[in-house]
């Protein structure tokens, strides 16, 4: 094999290993992980805000054509929130703007993500899966104070 060819292959493999290493670092050291679809929780039929401790919340989001329930939630900055999401009709999307929370609401299943809201502000939630004529109005928000 030509020397330049060998160097190119080595460089390409090293770059891929570097990228893979950074992904492992994000998951293990920075605790940024992919969301999960959980199978041991029964899908719920109403949205709910449950406070377990001053900075510990559990949010049950129900996605339906064309709204999220609850539509607005207020929590203090620094809260750790467990987010459970299901759908009451068709497939919806659930993205909290400017965060890594990006879920799918699939009827009959519950999606889960945990997020720590450190910065105060308004976090908009949008449906990012086309779900019908009112899709563009399907939104909610989390107000962090």
């Amino acid at each position, binding site marked *: 094999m030509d020397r*330049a060819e060998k160097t*190119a292959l080595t*460089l*390409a493999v090293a*770059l891929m290993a570097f*990228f893979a290493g*950074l992904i492992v670092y*994000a998951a293990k050291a*920075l*605790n*940024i*992980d*992919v*969301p999960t679809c959980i199978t041991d929780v029964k899908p719920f039929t109403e949205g709910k805000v449950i406070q377990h401790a001053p900075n510990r919340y559990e949010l049950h989001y129900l996605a339906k054509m064309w709204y999220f329930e609850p539509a607005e939630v207020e929590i203090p900055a620094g809260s*750790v929130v467990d987010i459970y999401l299901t759908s009451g009709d068709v497939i919806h999307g659930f993205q909290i703007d*400017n*965060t*890594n*929370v990006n879920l799918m609401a699939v009827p009959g299943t519950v999606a889960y*993500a*945990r*997020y*720590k809201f*450190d910065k105060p502000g308004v976090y908009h939630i949008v449906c990012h899966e086309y779900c019908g004529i009112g899709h563009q109005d399907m939104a909610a928000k989390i107000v962090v104070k």
Partner: protein
Amino acid sequence: MKEEGFFPKGAVAFFLLMMAFYAFVWLSTYLVMVSRGQTQP
């Protein structure tokens, strides 16, 4: 017939630029993800 002393300078330069471009695009996305914070505190 092999040319003596030939080195693929153009190909090497193109390859290095390509690697730098991929790294730039990939790291930009990665840093956005990192700045958006923990999902499993």
